[in-house]
């Protein structure tokens, strides 16, 4: 692969905005009810644990990429090729493609599901995803800088959505938090496991990293981004526990939407539709970055295929896969699948990869 031109790189702030935009998304609508299933009012501990564990994983990722820098482009594709050779590397790359496209399709389909439930019952999955993929295509042909721009804007647009949480305060019952530590470690850990889906997304730094200028500054931004996400989720869980009773919370599919239905303005009866629509903005960076990563991966594997042509194929594939998921039950299954594979990917595979890298270094007899 050619060396990356400086005009196509992005500043160190990208390490903040890109993982942030990938992480926060449709997951947080159902987040509170999913997390509290096993651990009830102690769910915030579970969220804290998995949030802190993402910091550790980020350390692994940055370590892996920094070690790789002296051998060439520091991204996951070249790591695979270098450590496992061309054939196994290609298979692993293909598996990561599957993960990325799964991530993007699960995301797109679940937001369409919410739109179909909340706004238009008869919204056609096909036509919406085509319209949406047109916008994504327009972004991605502009390159990584445009994708970063959308990430940044989605962060800005989400600020008002999150600040609606202020309306919880008058209705908060602080006694809902008691008793603390009522649940066993197993309950809490199983809650942590299901909250992984909400935290997934920061591993995309594995693909974007070579495009970041001055990676030294980028590191602290990457950790800071994860902390912001953790703070956001912690707030959502805490406020949901304060706002809803336990039984009510676990029986609601999207607690955030239910909460938004109760917020009233003089000229607006409720704000759930508006918030869902603003949330759409979060979809743009996710799908764009996934498509960009796939197009780049295809170019890495087959250097003759231009990204602008493979991008069209990728978007068509995304649309087809999205249409194939037909109902809410399947959306849930796909979500669970991505959750499990993402869990394996970040908590098992990345440490393993770091270990393999170390092993390769030892075996090839380089001095440390």
């Amino acid at each position, binding site marked *: 692969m050619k060396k990356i031109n400086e005009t196509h790189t992005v500043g160190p702030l990208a390490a903040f905005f890109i993982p942030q935009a990938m992480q926060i998304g449709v997951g947080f609508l159902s987040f509170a009810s999913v997390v509290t299933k096993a651990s009830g009012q102690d769910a915030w501990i579970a969220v804290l644990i998995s949030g802190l564990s993402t910091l550790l994983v980020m350390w692994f990722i940055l370590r892996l990429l920094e070690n790789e820098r002296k051998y060439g482009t520091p991204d996951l594709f070249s790591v695979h090729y270098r450590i496992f050779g061309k054939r196994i590397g290609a298979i692993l790359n293909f598996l990561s493609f599957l993960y990325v496209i799964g991530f993007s399709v699960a995301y797109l389909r679940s937001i369409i599901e919410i739109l179909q439930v909340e706004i238009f019952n008869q919204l056609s999955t096909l036509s919406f995803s085509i*319209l949406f993929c047109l*916008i994504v295509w*327009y972004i991605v042909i502009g390159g990584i800088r445009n994708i970063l721009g959308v990430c940044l804007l989605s962060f800005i647009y989400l600020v008002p959505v999150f600040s609606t949480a202020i309306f919880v305060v008058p209705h908060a019952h602080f006694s809902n938090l008691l008793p603390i530590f009522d649940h066993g470690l197993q309950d809490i850990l199983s809650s942590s496991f299901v909250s992984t889906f909400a935290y997934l997304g920061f591993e995309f730094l594995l693909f974007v990293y070579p495009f970041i200028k001055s990676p030294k500054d980028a590191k602290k931004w990457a950790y800071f981004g994860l902390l912001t996400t953790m703070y956001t989720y912690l707030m959502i869980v805490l406020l949901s526990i304060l706002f809803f009773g336990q039984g009510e919370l676990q029986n609601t599919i999207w607690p955030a939407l239910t909460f938004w239905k109760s917020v*009233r303005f003089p000229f607006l009866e409720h704000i759930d539709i508006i918030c869902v629509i603003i949330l759409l903005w979060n979809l743009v960076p996710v799908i764009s970055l996934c498509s960009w990563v796939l197009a780049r991966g295809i170019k890495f594997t087959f250097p003759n295929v231009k990204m602008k042509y493979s991008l069209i194929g990728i978007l068509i594939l995304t649309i087809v896969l999205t249409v194939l998921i037909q109902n809410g039950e399947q959306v849930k299954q796909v979500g669970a699948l991505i959750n499990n594979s993402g869990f394996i990917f970040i908590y098992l595979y990345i440490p393993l990869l770091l270990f393999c890298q170390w092993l390769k270094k030892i075996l090839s007899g380089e001095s440390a």
Partner: protein
Amino acid sequence: MFWKKKRLDQVDPDTPVKTIADLINQLKSNPDFTHFKHKGETFTCWVSFIQTMVDVDYIHRDIFPVLYSNRVHNIADAQATLPVEKIIRTKDMAVIQSKLLEGFIIIQENENRPDCLVIPSIKAQGRQVDQPEIETSIIGPRESFIESIDANINLVRKRIPIPQFSVEEMRVGKMSRTRVCILYVEGIANKENLNTIKQRITDLEIVNLIDATNLALLIADNSNSIFPQFLDTERPDRVAGAMCEGKIAVVVDGSPTALILPSTIVEFFAAYDDYFLAWPIASSYRLLRLFAIAFSAASSALYVAVLTYHYQLVPKDLMGTLIVSRSSVPYDPIIEVLLLEIMIELLREAGARLPTKVGQTIGIVGGIVIGTASVQAGVTSNILLIIIAMSALAAFITPNYRMATTIRFIRFPFIISAQILGLLGVALCFMAFVCHLIKLTSLGRPFIEPIYPVRVTDLKDAYIRLPLNQQTMRPLFLRSGDAHRSNQKRLLAKKGKHSPDIDE
């Protein structure tokens, strides 16, 4: 290919006629071309000029007396004695031809030989410097550019009287040969920007260039975009201010506007008055403008979306008012909105095209009569009438006319997408426009700069305007040669070290 038929051989006005006799023959039939032989005692010569282009008084007063006097014996004498600066002696046919047609006098010793004197005597014609009519301001300077490029450069240069002020001239247009000047302050303006502009202007392949805004369209980064990428202004103070920031100005002969390049989107929403008011007031005006633009672009689309699909968003009391107002309207909100929008567009266009005196009357009569009558007739609801009128007003709060037309235009895609997909359509349309803006560049610099890429120092003069003495940096996106406007250290030193306590 068969669909690309070969055009006839085009006449290229760039190629000069072969000899001077050809040129004179070609021009002879024109009644305003003067070509005669002067026979004096000591010196005989051929004089030719175009009467309508030269200042005849000046020739009679200052040039002929010298030429006819006995001191002149040959053409070199004439050059030495004529009290005119910048006389050219040349044999170059291209120079002779272009100068003759610009209003210079040609003096030859021999009618058929191209060796001649070219004497400038261009007639300056045009209106006086006047008050700005498009970018009016209540306080501040009241001068605006006019159609003469020299007067325009004078207006800018007198505001920046330093030797670093540079002017570069080029000619654009195969037939119009329009003078285009690039003004910049050397050492502050970015070299790369300057070269890009020069490159783009010299690469132009056009027949005639009429106006600066015309040039702006021709050299824009993305000529398909509905957003103007270069700021056009008729205020010399604004141009001078921008040049001190490190921007580059382009003036075109015959055009009362100057271009400022590169520009960002926030500049289109900043009036120059903002710099004459206290910063909290100026900032709140800017925020008001921002709100007005958002309102103007989205209000009628939101009306369509909410009334067609999302009436559950409307509170009960407001719903009652809406129902009463719409009860007599026999069709969907979209028809109602389009009807009124097009009506307002008609009024605007008629107001712009009609002669001033008639235009105002028609505007008032049209607005009031059509507005009230259409509500009374039950064709539209009066709430919508209020919304549409307000959004029309809000669109023209934009200080730049070209941007105002863009804002007026943008609402139609919004209305149509609101009809198709409700609020979802509005959101998708908004996304498409924002994505377009993220991609857009002005002279290769990002167009929505203080927002993306984020530049905190530039945000001080974007949506809000902080105090002028806090703005010590030139805009970062310009990559100006000298990033600092003022010396921070000296500024602090002047203030003194400590601030006094109460009653000290």
